[in-house]
């Protein structure tokens, strides 16, 4: 009998292997009433050592208990900076579960999938209108996949011009995926130092004839709008390069500013951030990519087009970078984003952006003075504090762990890298003033504890299901699978 440890009914749970009891079985199979057949010996799997033996209820309880450890935006405030963990309205789920969408086979001929193609086409049009790009692909399955598609198109464009440029400029306030994408596409990454926002001079100094593109995140990871972006785009263009924008922070711009109008050539969207589709857990995402007219011929295939009243997928695009995945898109996610756009409307999207920015600035105003603000400028949708000046050896990790004791998911920590000991808070428009006040009260109380009882921070979390875990040991000596005890 396993000794179930509990905190009230917060159930602890062992590994499924450790719940096993020799000989336990959930089912009785009927007596064999046909001649027994022995499979060829080569096909038989060897005994699996320690394979768990459990009944149905054991298995159901095991996974149900594990599921109670999950934390998500449906459980509470989730202020992960740069991740835009906004609430995912349930109406989007209703739309995605409509049988005509949910049961549609991806190989259905175009003429029998007109509704789905229309949805994709209209979503494309809406995203183009929001972002200011004339053309767009819905194919990429995540933000990083969208970046990859975007950089392949930039490469293809240069190739078509006969250019052999091999460098990509990336400011130090960009998302970490940006240099990874550029490197994956074979480009040499040239970091550019910024002082909060990128200066024209810094780009000018680095912008030579080997530079294929500049990759910027706008607003950047400090939550600051790249205020020189128009001049920077003009400069990069005048020297034969293109500008990629990481659109992961688009939640700060909806209805207020269109990246396509600023001179950006390529931008990916994160439907799972800005457009309220599910997020995390390794589930499907979608990273559509908008491009300028000049780059449109290079979009991946298939492309959804409208002929008269008919919609169809087109593969015959000679300059295309090709397909990025099997079938056309992460369709279920597109349905959710489309539903979100329809329920919000243009004025609703703009209001969401305004409230996301207001919420971040409310937190900034309440915490300024108790937490160090490395960049004093007013930020947009997120705000970055640091642990500079916290007394008694209290650091960002301690503050984050102590927040757990107060019942809040910590913000993103130690990112962006340009801020030592960063605490990066993005509340999104989802949260009410009441929720924001409770969160700020907790952080203010923690700042007070750092002065008067720092052990509370150093020992935190004390209320969580587990105490502080040894992240270093876990990284240095990871246990990646269960092994039977010898």
């Amino acid at each position, binding site marked *: 009998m396993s000794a179930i440890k509990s905190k009230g009914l917060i159930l602890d749970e062992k590994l499924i292997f450790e719940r096993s009891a020799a000989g336990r079985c959930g089912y009785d199979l009927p007596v064999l009433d046909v001649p027994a057949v022995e499979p060829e010996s080569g096909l038989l799997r060897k005994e699996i050592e320690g394979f768990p033996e459990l009944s149905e209820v054991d298995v159901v309880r095991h996974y149900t208990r594990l599921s109670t450890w999950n934390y998500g935006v449906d459980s509470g405030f989730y202020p992960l900076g740069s991740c835009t963990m906004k609430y995912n309205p349930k109406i989007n789920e209703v739309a995605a579960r409509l049988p005509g969408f949910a049961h549609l086979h991806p190989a259905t001929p175009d003429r029998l999938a007109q509704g789905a193609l229309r949805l994709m086409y209209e979503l494309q049009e809406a995203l183009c209108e929001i972002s200011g790009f004339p053309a767009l692909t819905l194919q990429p399955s995540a933000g990083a996949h969208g970046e990859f598609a975007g950089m392949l198109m930039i490469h293809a464009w240069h190739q078509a011009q006969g250019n052999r440029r091999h460098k990509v400029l990336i400011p130090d306030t960009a998302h970490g995926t940006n240099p990874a994408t550029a490197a994956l596409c074979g480009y040499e990454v040239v970091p550019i130092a910024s002082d909060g926002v990128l200066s024209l001079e810094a780009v000018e100094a680095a912008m030579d004839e080997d530079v294929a593109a500049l990759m910027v995140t706008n607003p950047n990871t400090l939550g600051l709008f790249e205020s020189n972006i128009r001049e920077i785009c003009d400069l990069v263009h005048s020297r034969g390069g293109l500008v990629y924008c990481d659109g992961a922070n688009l939640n700060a711009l909806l209805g207020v500013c269109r990246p396509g109008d600023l001179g950006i050539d390529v931008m990916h969207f994160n439907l799972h951030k800005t457009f309220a589709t599910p997020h995390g857990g390794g589930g499907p995402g979608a990273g559509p990519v908008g491009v300028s007219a000049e780059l449109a011929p290079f979009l991946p295939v298939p492309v959804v087009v409208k002929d008269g009243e008919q919609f169809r997928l087109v593969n015959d695009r000679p300059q295309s970078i090709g397909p990025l995945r099997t079938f056309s898109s992460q369709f279920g996610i597109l349905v959710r984003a489309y539903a979100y756009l329809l329920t919000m409307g243009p004025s609703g999207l703009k209001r969401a952006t305004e409230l996301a920015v207001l919420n971040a600035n409310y937190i900034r105003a309440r915490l300024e003075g108790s937490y160090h603000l490395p960049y004093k400028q007013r930020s947009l949708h997120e705000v970055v504090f640091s642990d500079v000046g916290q007394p008694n050896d209290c650091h960002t990790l301690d503050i984050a762990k102590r927040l757990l004791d107060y019942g809040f998911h910590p913000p993103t920590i*130690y*990112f962006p*890298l340009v801020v*030592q000991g960063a605490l990066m808070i993005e509340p999104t428009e989802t949260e009410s003033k009441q929720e924001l006040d409770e969160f700020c009260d907790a952080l203010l109380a923690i700042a007070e504890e750092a002065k008067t009882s720092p052990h509370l921070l150093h020992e935190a979390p004390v209320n969580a299901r587990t105490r502080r875990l040894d*992240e*270093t040991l876990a*990284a*240095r000596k990871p246990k990646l699978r269960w092994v039977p005890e010898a």
Partner: protein
Amino acid sequence: MDFPEELKYTEEHEWVLLEGDLVSIGISDFAQDQLGDVVFVELPEPGERVEVGKPFAVVESVKAVSDIYAPLEGEIIEVNSELPDAPESINTSPYEDGWMIKIKPDDPTALDGMMDASEYQAFIEEE
């Protein structure tokens, strides 16, 4: 924090030590303290060349992944092959067990332009 007098230091927080015609390179006590517990180190191969300002190694800590930039031009003669299995040496012994590579510099006089211990200390206090 410890900054041995016999070493030279760079603005990217590396230390270098000229011994004979070889230069050992690692990261400073300040750098390891900023990074936190190092959990993974990726080193180049002997025989490869390093170029000034280009990354030659990657150090991953519980907080971040960082490129380590070469302070000098030259050919890699030896790498610390024990480091990938004992990345904690960078934290516990940044100047000895935590050395990363030894190179044969194209121009050993390039060391002259680097900071000595007291200049480096002043530099990080300013940062």
